[in-house]
């Protein structure tokens, strides 16, 4: 079933949680709502579920206006961040709850309920824990019970609020893959909220990036990662090197040095912010070269197949930090030594106009940003 939210506005006192948000969630897709905490993503999810009401705007479920429908009538499955399992009921009764509270004429017979619950517990691989109580389960198990409970009522859409937020890294990764597989089997329209970019990119069919109550970009994981449409998206979706400079023909003039650019639509003399991912930066040990930014190697860290090099700007750019990712053998070939001076050459620069002071988008002051805007880099 498709979901559409239109011109949703929600305020909490003076705080604008959602500022005119319009989005479409097509049938059968798993969409990740991604953004820093306080960006309004959970509020949007709760408005879709009917747990919160919007100050303005509409929610359409399957084309019909559901804005005034009660939570009970919307037939959504909701998985809470802290699971919200009924603590005095065992796993079986938790999952059966939604079926047992149905009005008598729509309630399946108890034998049918038992069969359905068993089936769901098998689906989430927890049939052996049916008699346990929530406090006796691990976080990952609780989350799966919560999911089975939500699925029991055969919801038209599944909404998940930070489903893996309270789990440790390893379980999180497992559950992520598992959720993806589950979705591929059930094809139920699903939205999940997360502040973890890796999670959103890995699990979703499409990602919606939100910031300060607005939608920044919507697209497939590849699209948003490869072609971020705003500086915020660029910064949020991974580590980034930022160069603040002025356009000079085919170059970005940064201080006294310049970086070569490809095609661009900026006017000569315009101020611009250049964004470069760590793997898009090249290291040149030949200092005599005219192009590139001079920097000093601070730390070389090899983890697996890639090596991360931390550098600090030289001379006028002193104090700015840069991060480069190179294949391991390339590092061996370069023979980098800590303290060595090198030139940084971007293979690709993505240019943005610097934000005007009136704009809402928060942006790094200038130049020395490694990492993103997110809280979890």
């Amino acid at each position, binding site marked *: 079933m498709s979901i559409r939210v239109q011109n949703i506005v929600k305020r909490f006192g003076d705080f604008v949680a959602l500022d005119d948000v319009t989005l479409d969630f097509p049938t059968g897709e798993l969409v990740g709502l991604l953004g820093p905490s306080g960006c309004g993503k959970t509020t949007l999810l709760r408005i879709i579920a009917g*747990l919160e009401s919007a100050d303005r705007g509409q929610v359409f479920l399957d084309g019909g206006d559901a804005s005034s429908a009660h939570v009970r009538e919307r037939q959504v*499955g*909701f998985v*809470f961040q802290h699971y919200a399992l*009924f*603590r005095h009921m065992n796993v079986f009764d938790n999952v059966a*709850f*939604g079926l047992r*509270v149905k009005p008598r004429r729509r309630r399946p017979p108890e034998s049918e309920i038992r069969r359905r619950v068993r089936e769901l517990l098998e689906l989430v691989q927890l049939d052996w824990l049916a008699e346990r109580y929530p406090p006796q389960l691990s976080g990952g198990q609780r989350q799966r019970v919560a999911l089975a*409970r939500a699925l029991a009522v055969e919801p038209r859409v599944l909404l998940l609020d930070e489903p893996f937020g309270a789990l440790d890294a390893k379980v999180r990764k497992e559950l992520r893959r598992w959720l993806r597989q589950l979705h591929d089997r059930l094809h139920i329209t699903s939205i999940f909220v997360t502040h973890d970019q890796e999670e959103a990119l890995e699990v979703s069919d499409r990602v919606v990036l939100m910031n300060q109550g607005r939608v920044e970009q919507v697209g497939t994981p590849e699209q948003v990662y490869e072609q971020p449409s705003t500086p915020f998206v660029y910064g949020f979706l991974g580590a980034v090197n930022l160069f603040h400079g002025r356009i000079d023909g085919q170059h970005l003039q940064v201080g006294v040095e310049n970086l070569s650019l490809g095609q661009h639509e900026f006017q000569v003399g315009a101020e611009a912010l250049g964004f470069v991912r760590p793997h898009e930066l090249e290291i040149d040990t030949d200092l005599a070269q005219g192009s590139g930014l001079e920097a000093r190697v601070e730390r070389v860290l090899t983890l697996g197949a890639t090596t991360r090099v931390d550098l600090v700007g030289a001379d006028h750019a002193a104090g700015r930090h840069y991060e480069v990712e190179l294949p391991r053998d390339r590092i061996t070939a370069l023979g980098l030594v800590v303290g060595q001076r090198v030139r940084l050459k971007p293979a690709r620069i993505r240019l943005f106009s610097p934000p005007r002071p009136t704009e809402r988008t928060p942006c790094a002051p200038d130049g020395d940003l490694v990492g993103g805007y997110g809280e979890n880099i």
Partner: protein
Amino acid sequence: MKGVLIAVALSFFSLFLLLPLVTVFAEALRKGWAVYLAALVEPDALFAIYLTLLVTAIAVPLNLIFGVTAAWTIAKFDFRGKQLLTTLIDLPFSVSPVIVGLMYVLIFGAQGWFGPWLMEHGVRIVFAVPGLVLATVFVTFPFVARELIPLMQAQGKEEEEAAVVLGASGWRTFWHVTLPNIKWGLIYGVVLCNARAMGEFGAVSVVSGHIRGQTNTLPLHVEILYNEYQFAAAFAVASLLALLALLTLVVKSWVEWRGR
């Protein structure tokens, strides 16, 4: 140091709590079991027991319903005036029970605001059972609510939200999700409320009028007997209240233990 503190605590406990309790039973049995039992089965005493049970049986359920409603409202919803309501719930703790009694006399008494109107319609509130109930309800008002509010606030409303999303009605959510979660806190509050309702003296004393066989509850009966120099009988009746207190302590400890 530890030894000194324990000694201080124990002697304080013995002097101010244990000794009076022992005295009650010692005095009650001073003239033997026959006198003790006679004091309890005497008609006025039996009536006092009946009246105390009656007042409690009305006041406690009322405060149970009110307490749960108030706690639910305060813990699960945000609204204007929430802070004021929370403060008002504590009012009975900060007002002297005698003032409470006087208040009801001033409102419902013969010379009170509604007195003449009530007289015309033949309704007696002050110096009758309704007055006793009103005063008791007021005094025991906070026990259940006070116990439940922090508990329900700590539990949050996610479980209720989950139940509603799954299609449960508000009533069903209350019976199957909220109530089981607050069960032990609720029993605890009711036990304390009950103990206070049976033992209340000040407020009840003002609205009662001390009419034997009509408006005398157990604590008031004790006072009357004592003032009439029937010490053994007074202590015999008092020992009932003391036993009730001990029973309350046992139930309370059991609930605390189970609730964990």
